[in-house]
């Protein structure tokens, strides 16, 4: 599972020079990384870019535990290897582009709390969309709590066992069903309390 709560904790609690930097500057930096990975078309250039992002990753003392997150998109990149007819240079190009992008965003997330990113996005994106982003983020943590309880129940019901695949599928599906119903109940309560606090269609961030 994506270590979402840990990522959030690192972004809020750690105090490196990157953490102290303005979210706006970090987002602009991320745009430069994206521009680099789109325009660079040689391995040496991309290696240099990746090296720079990696250096920032370690200089900002981002926990190594988060590093595997940056490797996850390689699963999808592997599929493109089959297109190329296993050309090593092509594979290196694709892998480096993917790694530059994923390491960049993980670094951004590990050094910038989500609400700060949403606050910057709120200046360019429609308010309903940014509100939806924020509510999703909030809901993930509500669901993570429910999931923890559900995992216990799932474990007591047998969890996932190779010997009983059908029963296991039913258990997992019921767990997701439970998660959804509890989540929907929670969303209804959340809406009531938001309206009570004067919510119309926009969430205001501190400093706005």
């Amino acid at each position: 599972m994506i270590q979402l709560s840990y990522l959030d904790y690192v972004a809020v609690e750690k105090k490196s020079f990157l953490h102290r930097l303005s979210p706006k500057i970090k987002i602009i930096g991320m745009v430069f990384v994206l521009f680099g990975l789109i325009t660079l078309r040689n391995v040496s250039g991309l290696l240099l870019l990746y090296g720079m992002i990696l250096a920032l990753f370690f200089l900002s003392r981002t926990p190594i535990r988060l590093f595997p997150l940056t490797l996850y998109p390689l699963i999808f990149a592997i599929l493109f290897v089959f297109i190329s007819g296993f050309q090593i240079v092509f594979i290196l190009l694709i892998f480096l582009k993917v790694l530059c992008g994923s390491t960049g965003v993980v670094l951004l997330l590990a050094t910038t709390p989500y609400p700060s990113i949403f606050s910057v996005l709120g200046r360019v994106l429609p308010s309903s969309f940014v509100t939806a982003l924020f509510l999703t983020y909030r809901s993930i943590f509500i669901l993570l709590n429910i999931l923890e309880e559900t995992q216990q129940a799932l474990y007591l019901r047998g969890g996932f066992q190779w010997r009983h695949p059908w029963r296991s599928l039913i258990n997992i599906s019921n767990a997701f069903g439970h998660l959804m119903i509890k989540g929907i109940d929670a969303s209804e309560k959340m809406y009531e309390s938001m309206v009570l606090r004067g919510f119309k269609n926009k969430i205001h961030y501190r400093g706005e």
Partner: protein
Amino acid sequence: MEQEGKMSHIHFPDGVLPVWLWVSGFIVAILVGTIFFRLIKKEELTRRLPLLGMMSAVMVLGATVEIVPIAYHVNLTVISGILLGPSLIFLATFVVNVILSLFGHGGITVIGLNTLTLSIEGVVGYFLFRLFWKVLKRLTLAIFLATFLALIFSTFAMIGVVSLGTSHYEELIHQESGKGLIGLEFGKEKEEHPKEGISEKEVNLKRFIAIILPLGFIGWLLEGIITAFICRYIYRLRPDLLHLEKASP
């Protein structure tokens, strides 16, 4: 095996697809999003935003919780589409792709394309479910068929997107071969086996499709079964959420 669960759709990473393609993806996604936005009343959207947030969160968690022995993750887009409706599921998939891209699970530049391919599941799944429910009147079968077919649609949409970038992949292969420090070394290798080099240097979409489809089939089946069970569970406890007619399944 690791790739199996993701074969019903893939999240395109950054830097793989040509610029014109992902820019077009953004434009089309924004256009489609605007049309769907116009279809919902503002008050209705405001009222349902928390539900949208919650279902998007369920999809994000579904994409991140791996069923360990088979390394599969569910999308839950079809069931979310049924609960949210076709307009809101589009916005929800947009939100999901933005959040996932911030974990590196899919690229930032390709959020538009990823949204289009993923929302196909939700929108097509919603309409197919309504159709099958009307015809079959059997909940589990209707939801299974709707999910299975919706995933086929989205997989072919994804293959279509990948095939649109063919000339770009060729460009990347040919461009790098003749230059750069690393390119020189591979250049030498090519001189020794010139014929092999030429045949290997072509973009092979058939191979890509031959890998995607069989693995995708397993993904479609698993997602179909899991979604059907989830739907059955919801029907038992909160049938009102599914907005079905009075007839029981």
